[in-house]
């Protein structure tokens, strides 16, 4: 698109007969568009104009093909027709979802001042516009764009030069879960199969490293290669220390420079895509390897754990087992099924909790009814802390906390059995909803 512009500058003005001067003039709006587009070259630019997000030039061609919407023209730029298509703002989420699913990234550019203000600067001035957000597959928070029953991890993969270990960091921006791990190079495929990330960032140089690029490509996760300088460990350490208000990332047990670099790069990427706003994130926790059963992608596919061989959820073990009634519960269920434990004591603690609910039939039914009414408070919280939330998100949190209170009160055994530790801990935590709010 830019190339078209550049060539046009040289040739088109002279070639197009009638009024070359008109053709050569770049409208103020177009020059604003060009500037914003140049700052976001890898994304389709949703340019807000009134009640529409408009796309121009090559973006318009890509979007019209992908979305099946009409491609039109709007004026000329340097003597050439400007291809354009648009989506109404009120239906933008649906179009965004389709573009993201197809692996595109979208920069959303809004009008950030009142048109009346712009007029004060002169009749021809353009309304100020700014990119308020980059929408990428791994940084979504909207319920409409997310599968309520699946985690959506953004992952960073780093390989220190010549090492046979990789540093991984991953986080779910919509729930704030943030993990770091060091894994053997040979374990990458298995780990990708377990976590099934929604987007992977990595230094572009790593794409030439077949030992990393092979498993990464096989996982089919959308990739966002970035310049290697974005993964600098010194900058990363400072960034982590600033964000979490700690002296050094070692405080969280991140020992290797690669782990720190990976965690810091993720934080930076989220900050860039959210244009400076960061969601509420838990501090990075070291994911202890060996705590879960190792299963590679072929094993998972073959056993049809989360999906069938044909890629559907129906017919999988997850589909047969998952009777959870909340989105957060379903996400936890799927990640537990994807990573069964290897510590008998931890397995028994979970089985104790299941046995408790198995025995307490009435309590279980009441509790599940109450739970099914509880909204997804972690995703509502993420939207609010990102400044993307609305009154409904506040109401959702209020309602969720009220449910938590009721559930805490209801969690009393009616039979003779005593309460397992896991449920006592949950009850204490749910009881906190009384305080403060």
């Amino acid at each position, binding site marked *: 698109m830019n190339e078209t512009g550049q060539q046009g500058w040289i040739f088109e003005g002279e070639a197009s007969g009638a009024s070359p001067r008109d053709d050569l003039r770049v409208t103020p709006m177009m020059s604003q568009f060009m500037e914003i587009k140049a700052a976001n070259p890898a994304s389709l630019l949703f340019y807000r104009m009134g009640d529409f997000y408009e796309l121009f030039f090559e973006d318009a061609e890509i979007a019209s093909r992908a979305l099946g919407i009409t491609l039109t023209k709007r004026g000329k730029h340097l003597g050439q027709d400007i291809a354009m298509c648009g989506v109404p703002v009120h239906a933008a989420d649906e179009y965004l979802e389709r573009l993201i699913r197809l692996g595109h990234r979208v920069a959303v550019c809004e009008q950030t001042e009142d048109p009346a203000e712009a007029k004060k600067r002169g009749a021809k001035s353009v309304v100020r516009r700014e990119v308020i957000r980059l929408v990428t597959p791994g940084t979504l928070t909207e319920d409409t764009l997310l599968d309520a029953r699946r985690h959506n991890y953004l992952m960073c993969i780093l390989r220190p030069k010549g090492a046979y270990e990789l540093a991984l960091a991953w986080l779910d921006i919509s729930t704030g879960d943030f993990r770091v791990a060091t894994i053997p190079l040979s374990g990458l495929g298995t780990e990708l199969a377990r976590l099934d990330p929604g987007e992977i960032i990595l230094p572009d140089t790593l794409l030439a490293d077949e030992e990393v690029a092979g498993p990464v490509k*096989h996982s089919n996760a959308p990739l966002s290669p970035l310049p290697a300088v974005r993964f600098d460990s010194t900058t990363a350490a400072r960034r982590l220390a600033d964000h979490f208000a700690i002296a050094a990332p070692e405080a969280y047990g991140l020992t290797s420079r690669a782990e720190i670099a990976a965690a810091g790069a993720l934080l930076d990427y989220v900050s860039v895509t959210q244009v400076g706003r960061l969601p509420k994130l838990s501090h990075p926790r070291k994911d202890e390897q060996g705590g879960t059963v190792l*299963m590679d992608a072929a094993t998972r596919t073959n056993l049809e754990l989360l999906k069938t061989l044909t890629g559907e959820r129906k*017919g999988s073990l997850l589909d047969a087992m998952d009777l959870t009634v909340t989105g957060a519960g379903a996400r936890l269920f799927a990640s537990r099924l994807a990573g069964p434990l290897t510590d008998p004591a931890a397995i028994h603690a979970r089985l104790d909790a299941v046995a408790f609910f198995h025995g307490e039939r009435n309590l279980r039914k009441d*509790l599940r009814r109450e739970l099914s009414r509880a909204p997804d408070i972690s995703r509502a919280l993420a939207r*609010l802390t990102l400044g993307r939330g609305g009154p409904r998100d506040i109401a959702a949190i209020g309602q969720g906390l009220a449910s938590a209170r009721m559930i805490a009160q209801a969690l009393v055994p009616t039979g003779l059995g005593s309460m397992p530790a896991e449920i006592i801990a949950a009850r204490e935590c749910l009881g906190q*909803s009384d*305080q403060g709010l």
Partner: protein
Amino acid sequence: MAASLKDELPLMARDGSFVREAYDKDLDELRALSDNGRRVIAGLQARYISDTNFKSLKIKHNNVLGYFVELSPAAGQELLKSPHAANFIHRQTMANAMRFTTAELADIESRMAVAGDRATALELEIFTKLVARIGEQADVITNIASALAETDVAAALGELAETANLTRPKVDASRAFAMEQARHLVVEQALAHSRGGTFIANDCHLSADEGGHPIWLVTGPNMAGKSTFLRQNALIAVMAQMGSFVPAKSAHIGVIDRLFSRVGAADDLARGRSTFMVEMVETAAILNQSGPRALVILDEIGRGTATFDGLSIAWACVEHLHEVNQCRALFATHFHELTRLSQKLSGLKNVSMTVREWQGEVIFLHEVADGAADRSYGIQVARLAGLPPAVLTRAGQVMQMLEENAQKNPASDLAHALPLFDAHAKPVPAQHPALAKLAETSPDQLTPREALDLLYVLKQLT
């Protein structure tokens, strides 16, 4: 917090009117002002009607004019004249109406607009405060969210345990693997759904502790349920270790740290690798990575290549699993020759899917029984699938011939003929192709011309 918001809420805070009445006094006053404005306007309409005597006079609102007085054109003409003209300012004439404003109307309107704007601003302020308060409590809210999720999962598994008739597994640090009357949850549900009969439960004992048989070699015809049996045991291990009850009468599992499940011949066309290559890459991963706590499920490995290659590879794999990996494994195969291995490998046990023949047809019982299958019933299965009778008859003849041949030259000697797999066996150095070529020629049989040709061939091989 519940006290602050209305029941019906807008998506965006800037849309306003989401704060509940009586939550904020200032907001209530501003709203009263704008509500009051509406009442004043109604009063004004009544006064204008009595002043002008036009019963059809109405005060309306649109986004262009704001509030205005509307009358029929005939009545409107009267307002253009004195004494009304002093009060009513003409704004618009339409085919069937005339529109006017008045100073009072404009005044009320601007007061209402100001109140409305201030109310919205105030609501936004309240919204921001609520968000800030939630932000302060973000840690607590996050903890509550995860406690809710955990409770949901435990209750859901409790519900599943009851509805799907599951039992609590015993998981410990041993290397046991004992399933009594175990089932495949997904297949069982599908059968129940389609009313296709009941699922046949089967036992499985792969204990790697003293005296057990950690490797089961499963034989039996296709469609008899080998794959289902293999997978159900892997799935039960996954279910147990994620913390769920399991579909079995009882289950005892020594913790598994690594699980492999492979089916022979899964084509990977997308990556341009042949079936056999994929199979071997995956098998290599299993043999290189399985430790004493691994569980390995191998379904028809070696199927992707010629019979003798496949048999040899499968044979070596079983030996390696038994001697080197020493893991628990289920190995399904249609190479019946492999069943002879149980004579040499103490930890290997043969089981088979039982089949009855009745009037020339096979009936699958889906039961796992001790001992190897006597044959594979491939022709009977082919009949079920509807192969033409002529083909079936011919296949029967060919099979008889092959079996007679096999008896003259029994493969059963294979187990004894081959030395027991030696984990430290040195790989045989590969012979140079030129030497191999030389070894198979007998110079006496060659014409001078053929000898010269051979020399060229040998030259090419170097």
